[in-house]
């Protein structure tokens, strides 16, 4: 059994307030970037990147992942792999469609046939 832990100890709240300010700033940056009428892919990339930074700040500081024991990171690592797999399968399924090969095989088109207008 471990030694008893002191029941109260002083907490430095300054890092939490700094993270709070950063989160609010990044929220405004996200809204500003979305209103710039950039291309859809650029907006997605920027918005999701900023969201990931914000989520990481919350996890590291507010959820106390900073300095947490390795046993916490094992299930989280496995979750991250499975989460990535969800989207990897999605990309695998939709990749042809997203990158413009127009499902030529699926629709039985000749390999060098011109794309059908109005198709996906």
């Amino acid at each position: 059994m471990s030694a008893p832990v002191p029941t109260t100890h002083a907490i430095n709240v300054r890092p939490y307030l700094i993270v709070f300010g950063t989160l609010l700033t990044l929220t405004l940056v996200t809204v500003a970037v979305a209103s710039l009428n950039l291309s859809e892919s650029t907006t997605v990339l920027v918005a999701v990147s900023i969201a990931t930074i914000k989520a990481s700040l919350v996890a590291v500081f507010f959820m106390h992942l900073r300095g947490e024991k390795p046993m916490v990171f094992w299930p989280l690592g496995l979750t991250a792999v499975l989460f990535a797999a969800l989207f990897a399968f999605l990309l695998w399924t939709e990749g042809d469609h997203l990158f413009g090969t127009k499902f030529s095989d699926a629709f039985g088109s000749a390999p060098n046939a011109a794309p059908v207008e109005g198709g996906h």
Partner: protein
Amino acid sequence: MDALPYTTTIRPDTGLTNPKLGIWLFLASEVMLFGSLFSAYALLRTGAPFWPDQSATLSVPLATLNTVILISSSVTMVMAWAGAASGKLSRYRLFMGLTLLGGALFLVVKAIEYSEKFSHGLYPSTNNFLALYFTLTGLHAIHVIAGMIVNAYLLGPGTRMWTRDHLRFTNRVEIAGIYWHFVDVVWIFLFPVLYLL
């Protein structure tokens, strides 16, 4: 011995208290729950020939306000834990009360948003985007309500543990906080994905 062992002492084989490991395992399952819905959104959107203009369909100002409210409630939650850990009951009560207020405000704004959609004839059955919007935000709102119930208990009858077993009480607040911050993290992704893209 308590009915639940290792609530305040570190379990030697995991290096953690049982509630700490338990909440992270629970949140891992929550990531996959929301992940399945996010991937459904991506699949349906990329496969759709037409997709509604999301920022024109939904209210970006209200969603921005809700983001600020939820982020604020996250910081008040961690301040409540800091108050409990440093043995300041009044400080704990103030910040836990503010956290509850933040959750309630979030739900009020969400209710206003939903009623606006319904008054314009926009329902989950209208199109795939609105079906995903109501499913994702509805599931998230249920999580907010669940967190508020736990926080209300810790602010009310749960505080009896403050003097009886203070360290265990502080751990409870920390575990409730980790859950509450996760709810914030989910919204941090929902906001750009549903309202801005």
